[in-house]
């Protein structure tokens, strides 16, 4: 079993699907707008037949991308299934099954639709939409640049931290049979802080944030 810390870098790769679908070519802005409208509409969804229809439509939308793509979508839904099970058990127990079905379908449809956007939109394109939106509401260019820089910094440093964290865990286990635990968080955080200071120095040396 591969230790996850080795794949710290993988976590910084976005969830976009490598399988090319028609949706990949659609511009990000309209996709997000469509998603917001859809999510809002779902909130008012009522009754089992309508909910089933909407859910079926979402499934059909996934199948447009192919079976493999639909399976990826299903994998992305896995964390929700626990809640779905709990909700259905509850509603079965109190005998309010149609209500439970609607709640579950509403939840699944909203999440699945949002995931569809995530699976088919590049991070860079989403960032562009955000930047344009920020500009439109009057956020100054300097602030927008800082935002872009901070995104880049987090992406750059998370795998480094994960790797260093992994090393801390390893060196701890080399010294004791006790489980690595909270005592590691302090040196871990100290490392992050010292990295931040070093990066700040490097930025200053390069002329600062302007």
């Amino acid at each position, binding site marked *: 079993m591969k*230790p*996850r*810390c080795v794949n*710290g870098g993988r*976590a*910084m790769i*976005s*969830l976009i699907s490598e399988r090319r679908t028609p949706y990949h070519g659609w511009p990000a802005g309209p996709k997000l707008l469509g*998603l917001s409208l859809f*999510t809002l509409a779902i909130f008012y969804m009522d009754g089992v037949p309508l909910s089933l229809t909407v859910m079926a439509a979402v499934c059909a939308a996934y199948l447009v991308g192919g079976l493999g793509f639909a399976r990826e979508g299903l994998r992305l839904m896995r*964390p*929700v299934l626990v*809640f779905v099970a709990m909700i259905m058990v509850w509603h079965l127990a109190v005998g309010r099954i149609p209500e439970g079905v609607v*709640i579950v379908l509403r*939840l699944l449809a*909203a*999440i*699945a*639709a*949002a*995931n569809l*956007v*995530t*699976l088919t*939109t590049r991070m860079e394109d*989403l*960032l562009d939409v955000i930047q344009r939106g920020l500009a439109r509401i009057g956020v100054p260019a300097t602030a927008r640049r800082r935002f872009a*820089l*901070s*995104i880049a*910094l*987090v*992406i750059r*440093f*998370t795998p480094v*931290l*994960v790797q260093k*964290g*992994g090393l801390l*865990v390893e060196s701890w286990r080399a010294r004791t049979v*006790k489980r*690595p*635990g*909270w005592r*590691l*968080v*302090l040196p*871990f*955080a*100290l490392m*992050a*802080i010292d990295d*931040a*200071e070093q*990066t*700040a120095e490097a*930025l*200053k040396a390069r002329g*600062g*944030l302007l």
Partner: protein
Amino acid sequence: MERNLTLIALFAALIAALGLVPKLTLISGVPISAQSLGIMLCGTVLGAKRGALAVLLFLALVALGLPLLAGGRGGIGVFSGVTMGYLIGFPVAAFVTGLLAQMWRDRGGFIFPAVAALIGGVIVLNVLGIIGMSIKLDKTLMEASLLATPFVPGDVLKCVLAGLITQGLLKARPGLAQA
């Protein structure tokens, strides 16, 4: 300025890393996610404004599609999910925690940051999380709070840890608290 930016970015990275480093269970055998500890630390160490910004930055990256939430979750979908109240609550929790921690900064020790983390990171966060679940699952607040209750003991433990770690961090790097 550069220093604040990099600190905010690194703490956002820390929240992500705490969720990603395996085997970092907080106490033996109990799989409590260390990620909300990161949220608390943003408040207790960086203060209200920087702490909240760090958390918002983290959420922005999750929204952009990076699987940084505990359990490898990510994308805009998580904001439509059952835990959306908690996600909205994260930056609020960091802000409230930070406000209190800043207020009590001059009193040394770990109790004050721990209490700040408790009020912000447990009480405020769970209130918002429960409201979110109650809306999403169409349940009363009472029913939704039942879902939240099992996690509270773990959260209280995290507050104590946040206090201890903050105390250690501020002792090791005294200039940290200055914005």
